[in-house]
C-alpha cells in the first residue's frame, strides 16, 4: 500500500517535470581560444581532415512546470539573465 502511494506521487512529479537542453556557442567572428588549441592538438595527433572545431557550453535543465510554453519562457529568461553572455554568445533551447 505504502509503496503504491509513493509511486503515484513520483509519477505525478514526473509529469510536472520538463527537461530542456541549452546549447551556448560563441558568436561567429569571436575568437575561441579553446577551440583553437583543441583543433591544433587534434591535428597534431594526426586528425588531418579536421576542418574546424569550436567549443561551447551545454546545459541540461529540468523545471517543475507542465506548460511547455511557460517552461520555455523560463528557460529563455535563465539564459538571458545568467547562462549566456549575450555580447559574445548565441544560444539555442531544445526540449528533450
Amino acid at each position, binding site marked *: 500500500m505504502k509503496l503504491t502511494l509513493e509511486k503515484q506521487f513520483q509519477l505525478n512529479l514526473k509529469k510536472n517535470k520538463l527537461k530542456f537542453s541549452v546549447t551556448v556557442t560563441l558568436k561567429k567572428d569571436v575568437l575561441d*581560444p*579553446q577551440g583553437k*588549441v*583543441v583543433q591544433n*592538438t587534434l591535428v597534431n*595527433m594526426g586528425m588531418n581532415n579536421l576542418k574546424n572545431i569550436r*567549443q561551447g557550453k551545454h546545459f541540461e535543465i529540468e523545471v517543475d512546470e507542465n506548460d511547455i510554453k511557460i517552461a520555455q519562457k523560463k528557460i529563455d529568461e535563465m539564459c538571458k539573465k545568467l547562462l549566456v553572455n549575450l555580447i559574445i554568445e548565441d544560444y539555442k533551447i531544445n526540449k528533450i
Partner: protein
Amino acid sequence: MKSSVIVFPGSNCDRDIAVALEKMQFKNKMVWHKETSLPKSDLIVIPGGFSYGDYLRSGAIAGKSLIIDEVIKAANSGCLVLGICNGFQILTETGLLKGTLLRNKNLKFINKNVNIKVINNDTKFSNKFKKDEILKINIAHNEGNYFTDKNHLEELNKENLVAFKYCDEKGNINEEANPNGSLENIAGIFSQRKNILGMMPHPERMVDEIISNRDGINLFSSLLN
C-alpha cells in the same frame, strides 16, 4: 639526486620548482614537452601552471604530449614522479593517478595559504615530516576539487594513499577548512606503489623565509633521504 622538470607551453611554475630543487641540491634539468626521451632522473616533476591555457580540461592536452609517454614508462618502472597543482591534474588525465580535479566549489580561482595535515609520512616523499604535522602552504588553482569513485576512495583510505588533507590551524579536518570542496578534504594522493605524488598545494613556494615560510622544505629533503 637527479631531477627533471617537464615544461609544457603554459607551464608557469617551472622556474619556481627548479629554483627550489636547486636550492635543495638536486641536479635538475628542464625537459621541453616535445622531447622524446627523458634524461636519466631519480625524480620527475610536473610543475604547476596553465599548460595549454587549461583549455578543454585542465591537464588534458598536456596529458597527450610526446614526453608524457616517457613519463608513464618511467613511472611504471618505479621512478619517482611529483605533480604539483597543474601537474597533479596532468597526472590524473594520464591515468597515473586516479580520480579527477573538478572546479572549486565556489567556481573561483583561490590563492591563499592553507593548512594541510600530513596523513602518511611513511613514503619517499614524506619521511621527513612527522605524522599529523600541520603545514602552512600556498594554494593557487581553479580546479582543485578532488573527486573519485567510492571504490577508489576506499582504496585510498585503506592503503594509506592519502598524502595530505586540508585542515584548520588546530588540525581539525572539517568543511570550513576545505577550500575547494575536495572529497574528504584531500589535498594530495599517492599512487598505489607510492612512487607518484600528486598534490594541489605548492611546496616549492614554501622554501624561503623572506618570501613565505619553510614548510615545503621537508618534502624535498625527504626525497633526498
